[in-house]
C-alpha cells in the first residue's frame, strides 16, 4: 500500500480513481483541512502555469551565436592559464632533465667508484712495503723513498753516503 503522502499528492493532482479513491476519501474524513489544502495547491499550480517568469526568446539563433562567441573569447584565456600553471617543467623538459641526471650519475659512478675489475687488480698485487717516515742524522745524507708501482718495489734511497773501498771487510 502506498504511503499517505503519496496518495495525497495523487489525490490533489486528480490521479486517484475507483476503489483507491474511495478508500483514500474514507481516510480523509480524519483530515478536515485536506479539501482546503487541495484547493490551495490547485490555485498555486494554475497561477504558476499562467504567469511564468522565464523571458520568452524572440530571436533564439542570435542568442546562441552570442553564447558561442563568448565561449570562444574565454577559451584562449583558459589555455594561457593552463600554460602558466604548468611552468618551466613541461613533460619533454622533465624527460630531458631526467636523462641528463642519469648520464651525470653514471659518469660520476665510473669516475669515483672503484669497479670490481680495478679492485681485483689491486688484490692481485699483494706486495706492500711502505716507508712512512725516514730521516738521517748526518749532514749531507738524504733519505728518499722510491716506489715504482709498475715494478711493485719500495726502496729507501740513501744519497750522500761515503764511498766504501773494496778493501773494507763487509763480514
Amino acid at each position: 500500500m502506498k504511503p499517505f503522502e503519496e496518495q495525497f499528492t495523487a489525490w490533489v493532482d486528480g490521479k486517484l480513481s475507483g476503489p483507491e479513491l474511495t478508500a483514500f476519501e474514507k481516510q480523509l474524513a480524519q483530515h478536515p483541512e485536506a479539501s482546503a489544502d487541495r484547493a490551495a495547491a490547485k490555485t498555486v499550480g494554475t497561477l504558476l502555469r499562467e504567469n511564468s517568469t522565464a523571458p520568452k526568446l524572440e530571436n533564439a539563433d542570435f542568442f546562441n551565436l552570442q553564447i558561442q562567441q563568448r565561449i570562444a573569447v574565454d577559451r584562449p584565456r583558459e589555455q594561457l592559464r593552463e600554460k602558466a600553471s604548468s611552468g618551466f617543467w613541461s613533460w619533454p623538459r622533465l624527460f630531458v632533465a631526467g636523462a641528463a641526471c642519469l648520464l651525470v650519475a653514471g659518469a660520476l659512478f665510473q669516475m669515483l667508484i672503484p669497479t670490481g675489475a680495478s679492485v681485483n687488480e689491486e688484490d692481485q698485487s699483494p706486495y706492500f712495503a711502505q716507508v712512512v717516515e725516514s730521516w738521517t742524522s748526518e749532514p749531507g745524507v738524504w733519505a728518499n723513498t722510491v716506489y715504482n708501482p709498475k715494478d711493485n718495489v719500495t726502496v729507501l734511497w740513501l744519497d750522500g753516503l761515503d764511498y766504501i773501498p773494496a778493501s773494507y771487510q763487509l763480514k
Partner: protein
Amino acid sequence: MLIRPALFTAFALGIAASARAEDKIWTAVVLATNAASPKETPKELRASLPKLKRVFGYNQFEVIGSATDKIEDKSELKLMPTQSFWMQAKARRSTSKEARGGYLLSLQLFNEKRQLVDTEARLAPGSPLFIRGPEYGKGQIVFALMIE
C-alpha cells in the same frame, strides 16, 4: 648462553695469536755489481731480481750476510746480517689492511757505530723492503728486509 661462544672466540684468538707468534724477519746485506756472467741469485731475492735489476742497474746480486730473527708484536730486535752493517728495530703489529697482518717497524740502520738512517716502515709478509746503502768497490750495497 654467551659463555660458549666467548670461550670459543678466546680459544680461536689464542690459536691465531700463537700462530702469528711464529713470524720471522729476514734481513740481508746484498752486494750489487755488474758481472759478465752473473752468479746465481739467492732464492730469497729471486722473485725480486727483475725489479732490482731495473731499479739499481746491476745484474748480479750477492748476499754478503743475512739473519733471520723471530718477530712479534712489541718486540725489540737487533738484526745482524753482518758485523759491520746491522739494524735495530722495534716492531708493532700493523693494523692497516694492506699490511695483511705485517708489522710497523721503527728501524735504525748502522754501519758499525755510525747510524745511517732512522725510518718507520710498514711491511706485509712476503714484501721485501730495500735500502740503497753506500757504494762499495765497483758495486753498491743494498739492504733487504722481509717478513716471512
